[in-house]
């Protein structure tokens, strides 16, 4: 899978601080690839990335995802106190159920907030926040 990566002039939102485990995840995202972890020992899949398998304790490996999922639940945020989010209201926060299994939190773009519903299929795209750091977003499939 290689999804669209958009660039912005300046990233003004909070910025993830990559660590020893997450750096590879953020790097892949900057290249348009979505990774989750899969355990070579027990097969457990997990997100967010961690240094151990949450099922058996082994050292997890990376699995490249299809970038497709469905809306498990969501909300339309209509009030937020601080910039920059205050300037973007209303926007959709979503729990995405990846086709590969794990769930992850995200935001839906390119769509009327009131059109989002549970069970709706969505696909990933990325916004480049720094050279080695891409942020996954979600939109209706094209």
């Amino acid at each position, binding site marked *: 899978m290689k999804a669209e990566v958009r660039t912005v002039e300046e990233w*003004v*939102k*909070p*910025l*993830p*601080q*990559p*660590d020893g485990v*997450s750096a590879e995840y953020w790097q892949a995202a900057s290249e348009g690839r979505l990774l989750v972890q899969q355990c070579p020992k027990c097969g457990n899949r997990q*997100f*967010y990335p961690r240094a151990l398998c949450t099922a058996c304790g082994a050292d997890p490996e990376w699995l490249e995802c299809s970038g497709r999922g469905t809306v*498990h*639940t*969501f*909300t*339309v*945020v*209509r*009030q*937020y*106190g*601080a*910039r*920059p*989010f205050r300037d*973007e209201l209303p*926007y959709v*926060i979503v*729990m995405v159920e990846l086709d590969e299994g794990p*769930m*992850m*939190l*995200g*935001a839906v773009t390119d769509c009327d907030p009131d059109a989002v519903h*549970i069970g709706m299929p969505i696909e990933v795209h990325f916004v480049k*926040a720094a050279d080695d750091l891409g*942020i996954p977003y979600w939109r209706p499939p094209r």
Partner: protein
Amino acid sequence: MDRTPVIIGVGLSEYPVAPDLDGVQHHTLAAQRAIADAGIEKSEIDGYVNAGGGGGMMVDDAVTMAEYLRIDHKYIDGTMTGGSSFEFHVQHLAAAIRDGLCDTALVTYGSDQLSRMGRRLGTGGFQRAGQRVSGPMQHEAAYGNSLVGSYAMHAMRHMHEFGTTSEQLAEIAVGVREYAMLNPKAMYRDPMTVDDVINSRMIADPLHKLDCCAITDGGGAFMITTAERAKDLPQPPVYVLGAAGAQTHWNVSQQVDFTTCAGAKAAPIAFGQAGITHDDVDMLMFYDSFTITCLILLESLGFVKQGEGGPFVAEGNLKFGGKWPLNTDGGGLSSCHPGMRGIFLIIESVRQLRGQGGEAQVPHCEVALAAGSGGWLSCIGVAILGRNHP
């Protein structure tokens, strides 16, 4: 010697608005009032517990507050599970008292959240422009989720699976408001209808402004000792019949099931200790950060089957005179929510079990259940308290 754990004193500081008190002063004033209420000497206190979390400029963690209050303790606990911390503290102290780790313990909380931060933000937004975020939150921070949004995602999924409606959720806020109207100190005391709730502006779909709790100042304290020591004290003893806590996640993105919570694990343990059934419970003190919090607690704790909470609430079962009166002090929704409300659930339960509930007194109140929710329906603490010796 009877080491059954017993609550012997409770105290509130000032709420909902107390601009002259900082967080530490809220802790302190509540402690003084709880000690006076218990009728013991401060020098008798040999256990101290708090969760910190008052925030702001004042450091109020357990060790700092133990020094500030000059508690000469041999048992200390700083467990912090968000708003449910104090139900976890009851669990820990019940064990500590039974095992003799201490004989008389003080628990305190204080926060000046309203006076320090004001109400204008009103959204529970965590993140600001340009902030670097490490740890698990690095995977959430870029999106601008809010505190309300996290609970809203639970409400949205609950509605999807069970057909729960905004009107049913609103009934919870209306019922709690009826109790707030009986509490002269409650933040919001005007009469309120279901229409008022669902016509108030949307904060994060499907939660309206009046589905959300107040933001106030406030502090509280309570004291636990042995049934033996409680024999000659001025207040009627309130027995800890059962107390348990459990956790499913901390960050909302790690919630496994958005329609339930860790109460499903904690409640059977607490009921098992108490040796009672749900029908023995006379009143409920639920963490009402949002209306959906109460509905999910009601179901996960087993008072109704999952999915049946909405219709059950709409029948008026949680209102004044209902089967299980809920939040008789006016709750966090209408009365007092300084950030971590769990201690007020214990304090109001004790007042009711003593028969000190005033106009809001639940008739023949012998068993109260307090259930705190910490985080985003993350850590659930359940304490069952009773008027009679178990």
